[in-house]
């Protein structure tokens, strides 16, 4: 019986075409592509602190920290720039993720993972904390918890004041 169920599940999964039926995801435009050089240039133009979160739709811990980033953005979005960098992903996967979590800030698509690689981050997710004009202040490798996020945001605000 279990073998049959596994076989059916495998066939169903294999037959899936991976195309999203989610209208919210379909309404999201393709994320702009970026690389290390253009992303660094973009950061230099931002005259306030920035939190850059590296995520991917296939990354399980990214799902857990997404609501936290939303809360932080709602609270500090006026003072701090929030940017998402989707790495080693597909545009379809990225849109599904954004539709599910409603991360309402700017996101970039980094197919080759060149942004976190150039900044020395390890794994996914990673959160980089920048001062104004792209000055890297600190890096948090792995899932970020509420305390760490709040503390590092406070650190950015103290530096900026």
């Amino acid at each position, binding site marked *: 019986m279990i073998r049959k169920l596994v076989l059916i599940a495998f066939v169903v999964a294999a037959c899936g075409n991976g195309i999203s039926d989610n209208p919210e995801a379909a309404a999201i435009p393709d994320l702009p592509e970026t690389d290390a050089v253009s992303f660094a240039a973009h950061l230099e133009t931002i005259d306030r602190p920035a939190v850059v979160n590296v995520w991917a739709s296939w990354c399980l*811990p990214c799902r857990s920290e997404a*609501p936290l980033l939303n*809360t932080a953005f709602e609270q500090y979005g006026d003072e701090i720039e929030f940017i998402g960098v989707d790495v080693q992903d597909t545009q379809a996967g990225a849109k599904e993720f954004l539709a599910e979590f409603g991360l309402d800030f700017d996101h970039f698509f980094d197919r080759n993972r060149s942004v976190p690689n150039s900044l020395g981050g390890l794994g996914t997710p990673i959160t980089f904390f920048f001062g104004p004009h792209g000055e890297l202040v600190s890096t948090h490798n792995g*899932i970020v*918890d*509420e305390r760490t996020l*709040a*503390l590092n945001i406070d650190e950015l605000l*103290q530096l900026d004041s």
Partner: protein
Amino acid sequence: MEFTLLFAALTGAAAAWLGLRIWPDRLPERAFDQLIGASVTGLAVGRLAAMVDQGINPLTNPGELLIVRGGVATPIAALSFILFLGWTNRRQLSNLDALSPSILLGLAGWQAGCLWRGACLGTASDLPWAVAQPGSDITRHPVEIYAALLLVVGAILVSRLGWRPWLRSGAALTVASLARLATEPMRPSLDGGPVGWYLAGLLAGIGLIALGLLRHRQSATPT
């Protein structure tokens, strides 16, 4: 892989184990197992509650239950911990009085486990003992160490109370809530922290103490 959270949990377990050795009077059988069982239950239920609060469906994403670092609803975890212990000792609820100082010491160990995690610091401060994050000039309150010290002092005070029913349990709940309430303003937070829950814990603790004293007075009154 990062194991700092596990080290913090082990520090808490070691502190609770030490508490059981320091204050062995009237302990139930397998007291340490009970505390570990209650902690694991609290963690799992608290994580589940946090997932639901974050809009993550635990049925479609069961693997995320293991990502404890993604958040645990502290008040729900504490409530589950207490309910687990209450259910385990339902035939002899006075066992909770004997466990109370060790629970506070275990909590102190968990808070002090911030040293493993590099997560002791709170809001900015100029006090002489304030500490800066690595690479930063901004000094901050070592707020988790404050909480740990308050809990250690609380555990010692609770262990010195008499054996009137509920007195130690109520006092322990009061101490744990007060320790959180006193330190919460020094914790960086995105939403201000669950202060309402800590106030509820404080009131419940005071209520238990009052209930215990009332029952003691009634049983001492000659009929």
